[in-house]
């Protein structure tokens, strides 16, 4: 283990995952994680992006030594997730998917409890959490159960950070949090990178993916794509159009009838469309024939969500 440990350290790898597989059920009939491999570099902000049930939480729980993998292996800080679970538990920070602090303890008590549990004090590592903690400090005598969603997540992040972990695992930290707090939360994560802390974060929100250094798009326990957000978007092969009309419902029903269409799906107030051949003006003509009005088309730059949908459909 020692040799692997040192080589991984030299390469500057925080988390290394090889063919990790996890099944549930008596007969292992539910395949939750299907031979997943990835690496997280030191100080990297790595995102696992995927819908509910994609296997994100299972990956987190295996990496935090809470679950045994069925096959495959992984190391965190060079430590094996099965054999060296004690060392991993000593060094990582983990924020589970749902709010996992003591609801009947106040903010200050929760923070103090977890700091002590991890063998440190709030004062010692206050610089790490200062930016976040000042935002909730004025409520520090309030019980955690009575906090808003955003404040809860900030507190949970403080508690996960207070012992200066080498790797931080955040399982859907922004689920159930308002958009403003979500944005703040991601800014905090960006700042944490400066502290040389590697962060593995999962989210079902596509718009958050671009905040990561690298992302893995996962679905059904498999990694569909793993790259920087820019590269993933850049690899989008088609020209993408946004189409709208006065009646979106009819539009979405009419689009499949157009023979040259390659892909189409609702995207906010528009429908995103790509063509096998032909162009937008042909489509406009077609839609007018079909009796739709107020038609508007424009080319759009694909984003992560388009890339993800593209991968799901192919």
């Amino acid at each position, binding site marked *: 283990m020692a040799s692997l440990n040192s080589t991984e350290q030299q390469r500057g790898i925080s988390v290394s995952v090889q063919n990790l597989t996890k099944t549930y059920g008596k007969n292992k009939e539910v395949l939750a994680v299907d031979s997943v491999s990835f690496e997280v570099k030191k100080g990297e902000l790595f995102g696992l992006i995927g819908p509910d049930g994609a296997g994100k939480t299972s990956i987190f*729980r295996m990496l935090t*030594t*809470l679950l*045994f993998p069925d096959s495959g292996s992984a190391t965190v800080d060079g430590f094996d997730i099965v054999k060296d679970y004690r060392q991993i*538990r000593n060094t990582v920070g983990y924020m*589970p998917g749902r709010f996992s602090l*003591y609801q009947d303890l106040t903010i200050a008590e929760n923070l103090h409890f977890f700091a*002590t549990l991890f*063998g440190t004090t709030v004062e010692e590592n206050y610089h790490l959490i200062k930016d976040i903690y000042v935002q909730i400090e004025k409520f520090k005598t309030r019980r955690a159960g009575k906090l808003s969603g955003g404040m809860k997540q900030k507190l949970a992040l403080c*508690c996960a950070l207070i012992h200066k972990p080498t790797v931080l695992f955040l399982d859907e930290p922004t689920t159930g949090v308002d958009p403003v707090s979500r944005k703040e939360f991601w800014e905090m994560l960006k700042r944490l990178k400066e502290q040389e802390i590697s962060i593995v974060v999962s989210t079902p929100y596509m718009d958050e993916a671009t905040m990561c250094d690298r992302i893995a798009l996962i679905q059904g326990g498999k990694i569909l794509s793993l790259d920087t957000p820019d590269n993933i978007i850049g690899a989008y092969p088609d020209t993408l159009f946004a189409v709208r009309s006065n009646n979106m419902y009819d539009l979405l029903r009419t689009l499949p009838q157009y023979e040259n269409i390659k892909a189409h799906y609702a995207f906010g107030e528009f429908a995103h469309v790509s063509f096998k051949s032909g162009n937008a003006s042909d489509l406009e003509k077609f839609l007018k024939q079909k009796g739709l009005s107020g038609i508007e088309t424009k080319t759009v730059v694909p984003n992560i969500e388009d890339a993800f949908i593209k991968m799901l459909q192919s």
Partner: protein
Amino acid sequence: MKQFFVFVRKEFYHVFRDKRTLFILFGMPVVQVLLFGFALTNEVKDSPVIVVDNAKDEASQAIIGKMYASHYFDIEKAPLSHNEILENFRDGKIKAAIIFPANFNADLSHTNKAQIQVITDASDPNTATTVLNYATSVIKSYQEELAQNTRIPYRISTEVRNIFNPQLKSEHNFVPGVMAMVLMLICVMMTAISIVREKEFGTMEILLVSPFKPILVVFAKLFPYLTLSMVNLVTILLMSVFVLGLPIKGSILLLVLLSMLFMVCCLSLGLLISNIAKSQQVAMLISLVGMLMPTMIFSGFMFPIENMPTLLQVISNIVPSKWYYTIVKFVMIKGLGFSSIWKEALILAGMTCVLFFVALKKFKIRLE
């Protein structure tokens, strides 16, 4: 060590901030002692009884006088006919009727043999038997007085004495029972629930992914509930001495030490339950049905084990509360020392060791 202390303090926060738990924790022993002590007693006091004194002589008057003096009967003297007495029974006005025949004293002094008729309402057999026993004991005591005064040689009389509990006070039996029940319930249920709650709220995940050793989590969980159970033990003992007037005859130190042994046994059971139960409700249900029921049925506190079918008698041996109940009864009420209870203590200690070891072994350090 500092981690342990902070963890224990957190457990106390949980207990003291949850008003309902707090109420159950400290209210239950008090309520149970009072309930069993004053309401749920099988003593029969002031039963309405009709005395038909057809003799009205020295002996009958003396016996009736004795009956008045005891607090068992609420006596009404009335010269009623047999049918009128039946009428009273049917209306449920009386529990018993005591009838002295004419010439009662004459029969007694001349033939050395006299009869008293005692009629009881056996539709409630327990009360009937109890009332009958009271009446018999009053009559017997008169007979004994008589025997002392007149020197009749070679007179043999059976003497019944209720040792340890001469007044047949029912408190004596229920205090050890309540102790077993309260300690069982608090140790098992509180431990199980407090651990399952950590799982339910997901805090267990964070505790496991921390440098704090899982075994310390277990000890930090057990310690506060051991302390609270000690408080309850003291409450029950104080109440039994000062409210119920039941003295602790044996060694208090022995009683406390063995109670602690029983608490550790129950805490281990709670720990085991927390491994199985997925939610707080399930934990509570298992504790109630799986632990409290056997304690009530098999400890010998409510139903005598000797009267059970052999199979159930065998089963009763695996219930820790049975042994604890016996120990408390012997030490507290009979005032016996360790030499008389070492066998029970050894069995309880053995059970505790096994349960504690298994519970520690089974404690999951992962989520599966």
